[in-house]
């Protein structure tokens, strides 16, 4: 397990380094300086930026300073928002985005697993057909389409939920629903198919032959094995949800990091784009690392240390 963890950790560092370097190269490949006068509004910021990124130094030196800024998590000032640094924006926006993302994941994982499990247990029954219809529709309807649909129907037409912002649990319902449906559909489909496969395994028949209750068989013997494939896609799923927050926050006017990020793209506010990309990438790669470790914990076969007397 330790060797496995170390290997994964090393790969995580390499991935973060590659993303950071890529960001650096891309930002410096923009003709002229990314921070030249026509883009900035303020002389002071311009000076601050030049100082922060050491734009007068040669590129390798700039790169080292840049790496240092990543390690210390200091991304410098914003161009468009005077007197604000990228760090301040992140500190203000990320907690909200994080809340949205985590709620979404919880909703998607729990309901997706439940739906998929029940569909498999009632194979070819009503729940199964319902779940699979829901899944294929859920995968096909993009979250931004669903979001506008939900606003139109549940907020405007029936006035059940507030249409925008992020101030109470009621405000969270629509954005979370819009963002969670896709991942939920994917999880439900995956859980169903892997559950169906697991249920035909001999160890499930063995558990039945032991006279265990159906609940115990599903909860203890089937679910854990059936969820292995679900854990493996959690990483990509997280990435999808996190980038999904950009659009959802824009549509629902939620003051999260996504909103600032979209603004920064439209304004070509490079420090914010750079900072957010690197920050989010690091976060995601770290989450991937966590997912891998969790997988290793769930599946005893991955443990690399072997006890004496093993066959």
């Amino acid at each position, binding site marked *: 397990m330790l060797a496995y963890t170390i290997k994964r950790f090393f*790969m*995580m560092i*390499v*991935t973060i380094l*590659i*993303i950071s370097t*890529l*960001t650096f190269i*891309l*930002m410096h*490949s*923009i003709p002229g300086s990314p921070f030249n006068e026509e883009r900035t509004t303020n002389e002071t910021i311009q000076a601050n930026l030049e100082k922060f990124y050491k734009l007068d130094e040669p590129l390798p030196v700039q790169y080292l300073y840049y790496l240092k800024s990543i390690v210390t998590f200091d991304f410098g000032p914003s161009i468009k928002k005077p007197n604000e640094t990228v760090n301040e924006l992140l500190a203000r926006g990320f907690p909200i985005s994080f809340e949205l993302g985590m709620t979404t994941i919880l909703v998607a994982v729990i309901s997706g697993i439940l739906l998929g499990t029940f569909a498999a247990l009632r194979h070819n029954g009503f729940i199964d057909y319902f779940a699979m219809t829901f899944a*294929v*529709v859920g*995968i*096909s*309807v*993009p979250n*931004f*389409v669903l979001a*506008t*649909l939900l*606003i*139109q129907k549940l907020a*405007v037409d029936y006035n059940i939920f507030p*249409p925008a912002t992020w101030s109470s649990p009621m405000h969270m319902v629509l954005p979370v629903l819009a963002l969670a449906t896709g991942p939920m559909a994917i999880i439900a489909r995956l859980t169903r198919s892997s559950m169906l496969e697991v249920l035909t395994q001999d160890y499930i028949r063995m558990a039945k032959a032991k006279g265990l209750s159906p609940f115990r068989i599903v909860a203890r013997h089937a679910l854990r094995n059936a969820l292995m494939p679900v854990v493996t896609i959690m*990483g990509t799923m997280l*990435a*999808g949800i*996190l*980038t999904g927050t*950009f*659009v959802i926050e*824009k*549509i629902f006017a939620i003051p999260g990091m996504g909103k600032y990020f*979209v603004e920064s*793209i*439209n304004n*070509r506010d490079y420090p914010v*784009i750079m900072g957010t*990309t690197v920050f*989010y*990438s690091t976060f*995601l*790669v770290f989450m*991937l690392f966590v997912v891998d470790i969790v997988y290793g914990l769930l599946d005893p076969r991955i443990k690399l240390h072997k006890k004496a007397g093993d066959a």
Partner: protein
Amino acid sequence: MTKNHESTTVSPNQIPDEWFRKKDKDLIEAEAVVRPSLSYWKDAWRRLKQNKLAMTGLIFLVILALLAIFGPVFSPHEVDGMDLPNQNQPPSAEHLFGTDEMGRDVFTRTWYGARISLFVALAAALIDFFIGIIYGGISGYKGGRADGIMMRVIEVLYGLPHLLVVILLLVVMGPSLTTIIIALTITGWVGMARIVRGQVLQIKNYEFVTASKSFGAKTPRIIRKNLLPNTMGPIIVQMTLTVPSAIFAEAFLSFLGLGIQAPFASWGVMANDALPVILSGHWWRLFFPAFFISFTMFAFNVLGDGLQDALDPKLRG
């Protein structure tokens, strides 16, 4: 099962004595069920046809392609023909899908949007396919150390958050048809390369490949009859499933302001433009592009699922 046999008259409570003689074997063998053997592709097509959902998807896509090509021809309106007095008109006989805030015909723009969205998606899928075939093919064929290094590269690239990289690329390169395709393929080929490599490794181990090497002459036939059916399945399915994710990515980028610029409009751009007016009740502005994005993704998804089932030789039954 009672076959016609010579009708003998015997008393009903007795089995005829001649039944206790050796049986004529020919009669029995005639019962063997003969199953017509179909070629792989015909068989796959037969199974695909049985899948109603997949066929619905396929038919929808054919109609969509035809409309994308010929739709604008039937429309009297230009794609960027502005008609400011008639802005934001609901659907009518004149404007089937209504008009937008510039008075442009949404019907005409939808089919132009289809061209762009489908072109972006298909181009991305095709380029992924070629890069994937080359990279995955070399990696799988060479094996050994080269394969090890190439797979490490893939492993690292696979861990990158794709959409973030695409956003970064587009910010730098500036959004256009070409740059969107480039950005999508830079991240997209990895998945295809993995699958191709897996398939190549599998082929290498098949005994009939070893056998074909010793025969030499029959190789093209072996490739067609044995290799393609066993390896093209997953690759075709992967391509089919790349398309909806590319359509999604393109629409998503439009929402971030990184979509294709006027006068052309992809579905994503049209949907994004409609957002500010959705609350004023101009539903058709969002409905039509959103509907076509969703339904096209749906069609490709169910077609991909159907192909997966139809092309898997192991499920052949």
